[in-house]
Structures are given as structure tokens and as C-alpha cells.
């Protein structure tokens, strides 16, 4: 039971990071029908920037704000320069463009920061632990879960109450009508990318904390989060959050309980296990849990 709780809480912490990443995908996809393959690079940028800022002597919480703002700004810039001219082109084309934008960002990050491993600084003692129901849970994990919860509440309010949030929902449901009603669609795109970028940066900061590290491979988190996005349904923020949390928990439980069952085949099996689940799941629900079923017309 204790092992289970231990795995469950670490899974929840990892899952909340997945949820942040998945939410970023969904926000961008809803606004501009672009599936952003460069999202992992935003995560990476956030993590590296945060480390530099904190090491440069900035207060942790201020550094976090600056990191999120800068990463969001980079996202906004990429949308304006690269993806705005591609509006109306097939999804396939934007997928390829973002893959290569991601490759460029990765090279840029390598040039600026190098790829050496480093630890993410935290305002509390990085390895300190608290006891919950007999399970020993890292402060880092608790912080990740709490921060994600806070972000989700803010996100909900933004979507339901604020002017721009309602504009985002309108744009998601019909771009042309939204434009006709006077909603600044261009600004909605920019804001969506900003939001996705800062969510990714936040995810990057928590992803880099002990027991994990920040290195040149941290962008792979985006590929790992795909099953969460697809199982949740591409257009649904709620689906992304549920999918993300479930993904984290399932992955760590699989690491604890499924891997040993499979013998030699089980080595690192938990890394591909979410994909196996996703492939099986999509056979029965091709549009995920909350995705919209497309109506086909000739």
C-alpha cells in the first residue's frame, strides 16, 4: 500500500506536468488548428532560462514569472513570423513547419546554454520530503501538483469569465464568424501562443526539479505527452488535464507493477506503455474522450 501511494503521488506530480504540456497543445490547436511539434522546445527553453536567471541572482518567484513571460513571448513571435502566413494550409504542412521550428530552437538553445546536465534550483531544500498517509513525498512533487492546480483554476476563470477567454472560445468554434463579430482573431492567436508558451515554461521548471535533471533531452517530454492529448481529445482542455494526470499516474504505476512482470522485455517498458494504451484506445474512440467527432460532407 505504501509503495502504491508513493508511486501514486510521484505519478500525480509527473501527471500534472504532463497536464500543463498537454494543455498547451490544446490551447494552440483550438485557436489556430496548428499541432505544435515545437512545444517540447518551449519546455526546454523555460527550464534552461529559469536556471540561468536564478543562478544570476534573481528571486526564485520573480525568475519564474520572467521565464514564463519570455517563453510566452517567444511563442508569440514564432506564431507571428512563421505560422501566421500558413493559415488555411493543411494541418500536415503546419506539423512539418513546427517540427523544423523546434529543431531550430533546439540548436539555438544548444548554442546558448550547451547541453550539459544541470539541476533546477528550488527555494526549498531540493531533497526534502514530507509524509502524506505514510508515503514519503518530495516537496518538489507537492509544489508541482499545487502549482498545476492553481494554474488550472486560473485557466478556468480566464476561459469562462474574461473577455479574451470568451474570444478564444468563439474563435475555436468558428474563426470567420468570430472575425465577423469583431473579435480580434489575430490577437487571440497571439494570446493563445503566449499562454501555451508560459504553460510550457512552467512545466519545464517543475520537470527539471529533483529527482529529474535538466539536459539536452528534456524536450522529449512533449512526445511523451502526446498520448495524453490524443486520449483526452485534441480540442478539449478538460480532456488534456484528465489525460495528463492519468498518463503520469499510469506511467509510474506501470513502472512499478507492469515492468517486473515482463522480464527482459519490461526494461523501460513504462516509457512506451502510454503509447500502447493510446493506440488501443483510439481503435475504440478515434476522437479521444472529449474530442469532437467530425461530420464528413462530400
Amino acid at each position: 500500500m505504501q509503495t502504491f501511494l508513493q508511486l501514486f503521488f510521484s505519478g500525480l506530480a509527473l501527471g500534472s506536468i504532463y497536464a500543463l504540456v498537454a494543455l498547451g497543445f490544446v490551447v494552440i490547436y483550438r485557436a489556430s488548428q496548428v499541432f505544435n511539434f515545437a512545444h517540447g522546445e518551449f519546455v526546454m527553453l523555460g527550464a534552461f532560462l529559469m536556471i540561468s536567471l536564478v543562478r544570476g541572482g534573481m528571486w526564485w518567484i520573480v525568475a519564474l514569472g520572467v521565464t514564463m513571460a519570455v517563453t510566452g513571448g517567444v511563442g508569440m513571435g514564432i506564431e507571428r513570423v512563421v505560422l501566421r502566413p500558413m493559415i488555411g494550409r493543411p494541418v500536415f504542412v503546419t506539423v512539418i513547419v513546427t517540427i523544423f521550428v523546434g529543431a531550430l530552437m533546439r540548436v539555438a538553445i544548444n548554442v546558448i546554454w550547451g547541453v550539459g546536465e544541470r539541476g533546477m534550483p528550488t527555494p526549498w531544500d531540493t531533497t526534502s520530503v514530507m509524509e502524506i498517509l505514510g508515503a514519503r513525498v518530495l516537496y518538489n512533487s507537492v509544489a508541482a501538483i499545487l502549482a498545476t492546480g492553481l494554474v488550472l483554476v486560473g485557466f478556468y476563470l480566464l476561459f469562462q469569465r474574461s473577455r479574451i477567454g470568451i474570444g478564444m472560445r468563439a474563435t475555436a468554434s468558428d474563426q470567420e464568424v468570430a472575425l465577423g463579430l469583431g473579435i480580434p482573431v489575430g490577437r487571440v492567436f497571439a494570446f493563445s501562443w503566449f499562454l501555451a508558451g508560459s504553460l510550457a515554461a512552467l512545466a519545464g521548471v517543475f520537470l527539471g526539479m529533483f529527482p529529474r535533471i535538466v539536459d539536452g533531452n528534456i524536450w522529449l517530454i512533449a512526445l511523451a505527452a502526446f498520448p495524453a492529448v490524443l486520449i483526452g481529445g485534441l480540442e478539449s482542455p478538460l480532456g488534456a488535464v484528465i489525460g495528463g494526470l492519468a498518463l503520469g499516474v499510469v506511467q509510474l504505476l506501470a513502472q512499478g507493477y507492469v515492468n517486473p512482470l515482463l522480464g527482459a522485455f519490461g526494461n523501460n517498458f513504462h516509457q512506451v506503455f502510454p503509447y500502447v494504451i493510446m493506440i488501443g484506445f483510439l481503435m475504440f474512440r478515434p476522437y479521444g474522450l472529449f474530442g469532437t467527432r467530425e461530420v464528413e460532407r462530400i
Partner: protein
Amino acid sequence: MPTKPLSIRYEDDLRLLSSRWRKAGVVLLVLFALLFPLRASSLWLTLGSEILVFVVGGVGLMILTGFTGQISLGHAAFIGIGGYTAAILGGTYGVPFWVIVPVAGVLSAAVGLAVGPFALRLKGLYLAIVTLGLVFLVAHVLRSFPELTGGLSGISVPMLWWFDGPTVSTAQFELLGTPLSSAIQKYYIFLVLAVIAVLFATNLRRSHTGRSMAAVRDRDVAAAVMGVDVARTKYVAFGVSSFLAGVAGAMFGWEAQFLTIDATVNLLVSIEYIAIIVIGGIGTVVGAVLGAIAFVVLGQLADAFLGELPLLSELSSAQRRNTFQAILVAVFLIVEPFGLFGIWMRIKFYFMAWPFRY
């Protein structure tokens, strides 16, 4: 500039090479490809073989993505299956290359057909990400049997003439006074395979199946309504594409002579092939060939010249290549969506209409 003569007989329409100019062009290209290795330096010979590998794999992806419109990020999985088939059969069991070529293709096609049911239910992004999952799964399976695949340390890929026989290097041949080294022999074998792949794809495109593929790509519901068997067409596309990818994988293994799982079964490899068909021009066989040539030659030049630039010289050669490739593809997608083939068509139409603008 001569225009295409008016077809007055049905046979004219059926011919593979419709005009005298096209014939002349193809003959020149084949002659160049045949004579090229006799004078080329060893670096360019390697690049030539690399191009031929990319041609076979690129034609495979072109059939799936360009003809049928199914986005696949899983090409690397099939390349990996082909490569490791060549490595295991050739290295452990001493099977010669001409047996491995079809076996690698068939094994890879079997896995490709297994993806078929998903392609029937999923579209666009969902399919792309399921095929991406296939890359991770194949990599995981290969990693799980280290006694067979060499695990993380990799495996060498010998290319044999005969069962447990000599590798291609020791067989003695001579052409026009030039002794044929192992690299040249390999090049010619690859050339034959590439020519077969290109001819096959060209003919496939002109066949009933090829036209069904185009219909499925353009609007699958409409195609189904008109009586195209969408399921069969998608299965054929996945099967043929992964067959060619398997062959390309075996060729890749022989060219590299050593395979590691992380470098072979990798999202970046899939992306390289997508870059090739995008640069060349999506939806045409010529595009796959042009794309492969441009990709390898420009990559090599970029590697040489970008190294001179101050900031970029700190990057490794692979990173420089990736950077250049990324910029090239982004520019093509934004400026010329039909790739090199589109540029060629524009030049051709300009001169055909000359001195008028259109």
C-alpha cells in the same frame, strides 16, 4: 522550347516517356548515374550511394504521403526493421544480399499492413501520432532483444554475395579499365534497386490503384461514394510504402555498415524523409528523386560552408546539417509548396510560353 506533341493515338498516352526530350533526359541521367562512380572521389561515391538509399525510402514515403495523403511519422520504424533484418540475417546467418532485399521488404510490409486497421479509423494528426508511436514501439522491441540486435552497443551489417560467402569487396570485376571496389559494386547494386523502385512507383501512379490513391488523398469520402475501395487502397499504400522502406533500411544498413537503435529508429529519421519529399515536391515520383539529390548534396555543401560562419562553427556536423535542413524545408513550405518539382514546372512553362508571359 518544344512542347509536348499532341497525342493522337491511345498508345501515345500509354507510353512511359511521352516525348523525345523526356527520353533524352532520362538517357542522359542514367548514363551519368552509370559513369559517375568511375570518376568520383570516395566522398562523392559515398554521397551517391546515400542518395540512392534516400531515393528508395523517399519513393516509399511518397507513395504513402504524396500519393495517398496518409501522414506518417513512422517511416523510421520500417527503415529500422529493414536495417536490422539485414544485420541479423547477414551477420548472424550469413545470408546474401539478394535474399535479404525481398525478405527485409516483406517483413517491413507485414508490420506496415498491421498499421492498416488504424489508418482506416484515424485521420491526419491522430494517424501521424499513432505512426510515431510505432517508432517508439519498434525501438523498444529492438532494445529488448540485445542478444539478437546487439542492444545499445549496435550491430555490424555485412553485405554478402553468397551464403556465408565473401562480402562484396573481394569479388573481382573491372569496368572500362577501372577496377570495381566494394564501394562501387555497392553503388551499382543500389542503383539497380533505386531504378526498380522509381519505375515501380511511376507505373503504380498510372494504374488503377494509383488513381484510387489520388482519389483517397483528395477526398476520401467522395472517393468511397464513387466506388473506390478506400480500405484496400490504404492497405496497399501502407504495404507498398513499408516494403520500400524496408528495402531502403537494408540498403541504409549496408551503406552505414553499422547500426545503432537510437540513430536508426528515431523520429529524426522519419523527419529526414519528410524533408526529402517536401523539398522535392509532394505527389510526384520525380520529386522523391530530386529531393533525395538536393537533400544529400545541399546538406554536404551546407556542412562545408556553414562551418565557416562564426556562430555555427561551434555546432557538430550533424547539428549543422539539421539546422540547414530545417531552414530549407521551412522556406520551401512557405515560399514554394510544390518543391523543386514546382520550380522546374514554373521554369518550363515560362520558356514554353516565351516570349509571352503566359
